């Protein structure tokens, strides 16, 4: 058991932090970037690729760098710290399905380009009404139905789409430029982008064997996304808490700095407790993903629930402890709250994960973290 980063991992963290903290050096800079489409900096995306951040978890033979969940978490946490709007999570998650399910040709085609920063992927998974249906005609497949919201779906160069097949769930690659795909993009409250993506007989290529149910592969990919999101949240939480404690130390009211008010400092202490517990849980989930992937779906639910609680607690209190300034778009802390709220509701919120865990609570006695 070991919770420390090795020297390569530390170097990766420092490199990503160096890049992102320079790029997003102020709330204003980030607001400028998110104001216009695609809602992120294509240049920063390239720089992330140059750092090697985009190919980390993928096999070297596919064009990746053969690293693992820990390295993904490191990048995600740095993204969370500055609320970098780049489509890292979406691309990595979708590319993960290509890596898991795709043929050697598909992998070679997609992964390498992702690693180079040449492809932004999007994972079109949420059926807003009836499920998107995949239909086979000879060797050809088409999709029909609507996915929404699809994060970064309007900008994406390639869509990884889940759809209903006779076997259950299938996963398909769709080139958004083909006929029968209509994308309507919009801003999300956290400065991100999402889209309605409508398929109407759109040509699609199966990832893996379309006559088999891909539910387990999708669940694992989603778990990886949830855990990465958890790290993104933990990064955001850390900065939101620091920003808040700094404010308490410097803001004066009634002739003293706010940290003279014990009612406020005790609440800050409770925030720290929440933050530490969340960090422990997502770190553990990453290690489960690395060392015991068969438990990853459960671990991801646990992490997501903990992060949901911590994100709400810290997001809400960070604003409250700031007072009015925390409500303004010019100041940083409200953006952290907005992003934490978005993370909570991406890939299943706290209530959903609690319900899942509740439904299996009698399957075990104690929970043993180390298996």
């Amino acid at each position, binding site marked *: 058991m070991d919770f420390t980063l090795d020297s390569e991992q530390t170097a990766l963290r420092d490199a990503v932090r160096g890049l992102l903290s320079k790029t997003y050096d102020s709330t204003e800079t980030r607001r400028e970037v998110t104001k216009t489409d695609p809602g992120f900096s294509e240049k920063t995306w390239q720089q992330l690729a140059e750092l090697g951040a985009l190919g980390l978890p993928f096999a070297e033979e596919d064009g990746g760098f053969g690293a693992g969940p820990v390295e993904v978490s490191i990048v995600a946490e740095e993204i969370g710290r500055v609320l970098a709007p780049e489509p890292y999570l979406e691309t990595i998650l979708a590319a993960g399905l290509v890596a898991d399910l795709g043929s050697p040709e598909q992998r070679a085609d997609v992964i390498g380009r992702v690693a180079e920063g040449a492809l932004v992927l999007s994972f079109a998974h949420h059926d807003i009404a009836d499920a998107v249906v995949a239909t086979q005609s000879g060797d050809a497949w088409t999709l029909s139905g609507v996915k*929404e919201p699809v994060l970064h779906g309007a900008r994406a160069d390639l869509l990884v789409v889940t759809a209903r097949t006779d076997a259950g769930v299938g996963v398909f690659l769709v080139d958004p430029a083909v006929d029968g795909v209509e994308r309507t993009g919009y801003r999300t409250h956290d400065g991100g982008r999402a889209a309605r993506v409508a398929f109407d007989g759109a040509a699609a290529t199966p990832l893996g064997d379309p006559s088999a149910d891909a539910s387990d592969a999708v669940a694992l990919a989603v778990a990886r996304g949830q855990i990465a999101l958890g790290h993104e949240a933990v990064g955001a939480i850390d900065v939101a808490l620091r920003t808040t404690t700094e404010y308490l130390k410097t803001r004066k009211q009634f002739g003293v700095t706010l940290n003279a008010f014990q009612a406020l400092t005790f609440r800050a202490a409770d925030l720290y407790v929440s933050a530490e517990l969340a960090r422990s849980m997502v770190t553990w989930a990453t290690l489960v993903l690395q060392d015991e992937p068969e438990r990853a779906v459960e671990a991801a639910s646990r992490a997501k629930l903990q992060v949901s609680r911590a994100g709400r607690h810290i997001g809400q209190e960070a*604003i*409250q402890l700031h007072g009015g300034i925390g409500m303004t*778009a010019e100041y940083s802390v409200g953006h952290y709250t907005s992003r934490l709220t978005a993370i909570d509701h991406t890939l299943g*919120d706290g209530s959903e994960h609690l*319900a899942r865990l509740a439904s299996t609570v009698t399957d075990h006695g104690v929970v043993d973290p180390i298996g």
Partner: protein
Amino acid sequence: MKLRLSEEDAAFREEMRTFFTTQVPQSIRDTVAARRELTKDQIVETQQILNAAGLAVPNWPVEWGGKDWTPLQRHIWHEEMQLASVPAPLAFNASMVGPVIAAFGSQEVKERFLPATANLDIWWSQGFSEPDAGSDLASLRTTARREGDEYVVNGQKTWTTLGQYGDWIFTLVRTDPDAPKKQQGISFLLIDMTSPGLTVRPIELIDGGHEVNEVFFEDVRVPAENLVGEENRGWDYAKFLLGNERVGVAPVGSTKRWLAAAKETAGERIASDPLLAARIADLENELLALELTALRVVAHSADGKPHPASSVLKLRGTELQQAVTELYVDLAGPLSLASGAQDGSDVPDWARVSTPQYLNFRKASIYGGSNEVQRQIIAKTILGL
């Protein structure tokens, strides 16, 4: 002790209910019900309808358009208005500056401002908070230097809600910088927002909306006749105003309405999700307890002074308001991200507005005396701590 309304009060309630649900345009009430933003015109139109019926400023003295209602009747008026999704009369006019002018203004000031204030012919803005005077309001720095028949005002106000619509602004300004206590030396001054040297700058909030502003004063010249009451007594008037404000900002009725609408929105899911059902039932119970507390406060505040328990209403009322906004976000789930969805999106309206409203309502526990200030009032004034 009895539960039922007297026949008179029951008739009054019926009268209010009928008025609000028939005399205020449906389109305005629909906007409120859907939790969308009202236009300035909609707010003005509503208040003028109410004012024409004598229902805009019931808390004012009768000679200025008020009603000689009991506190319970005032409560019924307010609750029915909220339940009918009728936008309340603009608080800056009806609950804040109006009562101050009526109580402390000279006859001239009253005649000049009160009728126009009741009818929203003048849109008032509030100029109290400053960047370095939040909860510690009395440390404000905006100065008004007397020069002949005028005051010369310099400084900055902030958090001026809907200041972009404002015709006039009521301000707290420092007229005696040498007063021994900072609460002394403050005056209550009315300022025409078209005055030279006065500028309004919008503040964008985290939900992307523009509802508050900064107001800058650079050698703004204000006729001395615009002073309310006596010079250097402004702090007393401000306390009077803030006490009234506290009562007004615990919108039980609108929160009840939101929660009822959330049940409709959730629909079948409630039956299949016991945790959701319990969460709603719990909120409903807490809201009922708060409403009953409001009724108790109403029943015991015959003298017109704000009951100290009104801090309970503000504190708990905003907590519950925020809890209901959070419920909507959770009902929307992944759809809650789609705040920017446009025509053609399959995301329903209520889900699109859920997160911006949740974020926006974080303000509720900050403004109107933050919940920390309310706890302080309860601890000190009620519990003697």
